[in-house]
């Protein structure tokens, strides 16, 4: 049963076999990368397609953009999502605007892979959830798989997508999520997945928190509360219809995410629900997320920081009783 990490590796290998234009670049990639996602690829495809970059994120993205404008399909890796910040200018001011400002005459097919997320004793610089920063940037797609199956299928679409895609890989899931078998076909971006059906309350989530939601939903079911869990899978495009349909059915919405509470993707989802499903709501739109502090190193603090199935269950109880 292949892991999430193997799903990524398989996705990369499949696309590289299929399309000569796909190249990988990033720090330590040639030796397999710090998470071994690219292990074996240099042996298979050579150093011309699996490039150990200098330690310089702005140029990892900048070089990828330029290579994409000149006919390649680069898949840069940022070693940890925490280190995407030096490349922000290339992503936000450049990659995101190329199609729009060139009236579609140019486009920028890059897929920026970024291991992210907490629960792995990574501390403040190897745990951050930075996806929220990109949410308001037109022109950037944001993909965050929660299962090994999705990891591969969404990676295929991301690489094939003609526009820049931020592809977040949750480190906690790398070796913990497994698939029976890996798909060979892409999944469209912008389609959320109902991971569990329920009539009483909707949890909207993505990434590793989907599994926390599912655990809490299971516990809640034993208390007679039927929780529906919607896995967004992509933050952009955001599958508004699936979210709204679920909330219209359950009338109660809880948004669960791992980024800091304020300004996160959860705010967008909550605002969407408050605007579009107001008539159907039987309770406040509740957000559950880490507090507005930095990610701590110590594991006692880390546990207190992250939402858990217990804290989600408590929130379910409260909202269900509303």
């Amino acid at each position, binding site marked *: 049963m292949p892991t999430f990490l193997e799903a990524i590796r398989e996705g990369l290998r499949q696309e590289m076999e299929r*399309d000569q234009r796909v190249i990988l670049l990033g720090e330590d990639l040639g030796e397999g990368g710090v998470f071994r996602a690219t292990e074996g690829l240099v042996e298979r495809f050579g150093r011309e397609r699996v490039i150990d970059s200098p330690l310089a994120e*702005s140029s990892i993205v*900048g*070089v990828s953009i330029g290579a994409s404008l000149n006919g390649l399909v680069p898949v840069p890796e940022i070693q940890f999502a925490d280190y995407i910040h030096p490349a922000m200018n*290339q992503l936000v001011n450049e990659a995101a605007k190329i199609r729009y400002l060139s009236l*579609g005459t140019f486009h920028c097919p890059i897929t920026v892979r970024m291991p992210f997320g907490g629960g792995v004793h990574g501390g403040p610089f190897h745990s951050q959830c930075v996806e929220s920063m990109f949410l308001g940037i*037109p022109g950037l797609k944001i993909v965050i798989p929660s299962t090994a199956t999705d990891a591969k299928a969404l990676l295929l679409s991301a690489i*094939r*997508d003609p526009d820049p895609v931020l592809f977040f890989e949750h480190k906690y899931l790398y070796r913990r999520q497994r698939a029976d078998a890996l798909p060979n076909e892409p999944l469209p971006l*912008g389609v959320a997945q109902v991971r569990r059906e329920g009539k009483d309350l909707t949890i909207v989530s993505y990434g590793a928190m989907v599994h926390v939601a599912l655990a809490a939903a299971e516990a809640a079911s034993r208390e007679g509360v039927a929780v529906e869990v919607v896995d967004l899978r992509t933050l952009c495009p955001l599958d508004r219809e699936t979210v709204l349909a679920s909330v219209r059915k359950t009338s109660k919405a809880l948004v669960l995410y791992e980024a800091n509470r304020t300004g996160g993707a959860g705010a967008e989802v909550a605002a969407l629900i408050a605007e579009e499903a107001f008539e159907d709501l039987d309770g406040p739109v509740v957000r559950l997320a880490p507090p507005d502090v930095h990610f701590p190193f110590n594991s006692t603090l880390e546990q207190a920081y992250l939402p858990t199935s217990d804290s989600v269950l408590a929130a379910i109880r409260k909202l269900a009783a509303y």
Partner: protein
Amino acid sequence: MASSAPAAAITQQRDTANSLTEDDLRRLYELMALAKACDEKAWTLHRQGRISFVAPCRGHEAAQVGSAYALRPGQDVVFTYYRDIAVGLTLGMDLPNMFLSLFGKEALVNGGSRHMPWHLCHTGLKLMPATSVVATQIPQAAGAALAAKYRNDDSVTIVYFGDGATSEGDFHEALNWAAIHRLPLVFLCENNGYAISTPVSRQMSVTSVADRAAGYGVPGHIVDGSDPLAVYGATAEAVARARRGGGPTLLDAHMRRLRAHTSDDDNRRYMTPEQIEELRKHDPVDEFRQKLIRRGALTQEAAQHLDDTIREAIDQAVEMAEAAPEPDVASLATEVFGVAAGQLPPASL
């Protein structure tokens, strides 16, 4: 795809300035005169309130035309910045599109009404999309050169940027990539001694951008950026070197910015009247014209005739562009993404 075929601006490349024919010299002059005339027209239009923004190229004509003349239009890959209209004109960008862009109308190139005026972008000419952001194009150019090297297609990439741009981290990161991978890439610094109001003496502690090259194992040369032949020669050599696998070159073309930074700037705030007066004495277009006349490659009459032809062509383009319709506001929402939500991407890009 809104590209048009590259105009037949340049028929032949020669390795050194010496091998240029008199036709080449006249063509260089024509392009410089055209760029100068476009610039002057734009400056006037701005003062008349008919356009809202222009970044002038005055003083940069020799460097832009001379360097671009050493390229194969539509084959070599070109990353420009906001001041590079003469690069575009040399490669074959046409006047109607240039003035549509200046008026912020629906040109089919340069980002049409959406983008800043005269930020070049043209697929057929391999003018890669320019933004206003300083230095971002430099690592992108390294990426384009990496792609060319990967494909082994013999194209060379050139990237233009100002002296101020060399302070950005992106400049350093790109030089490093180019050096490590021996990329077929020419770095062309249009060193006009100022970044808006900041003189180069506050921008760096060395006297030349070319000094930076050695630290990467890259050759660096100072070039007289007011002499189109010097720039042509240096660029042709660097391009040839890149083309035969010799790796990148950094050219530091020294020149003067004859106007304020842009139409939003007033250089009297940071230059003395004497400094501004001095600028007037150094018009590379006039200088080259005199040189060609002295050399017998151009007559006063031919030059005058050229000016008239250019003026007429520009006036026509202005008239057309100014009268062109405003964009449809419904177009605001187009071309954000190539594949809609919920759709699969095409099997092949």
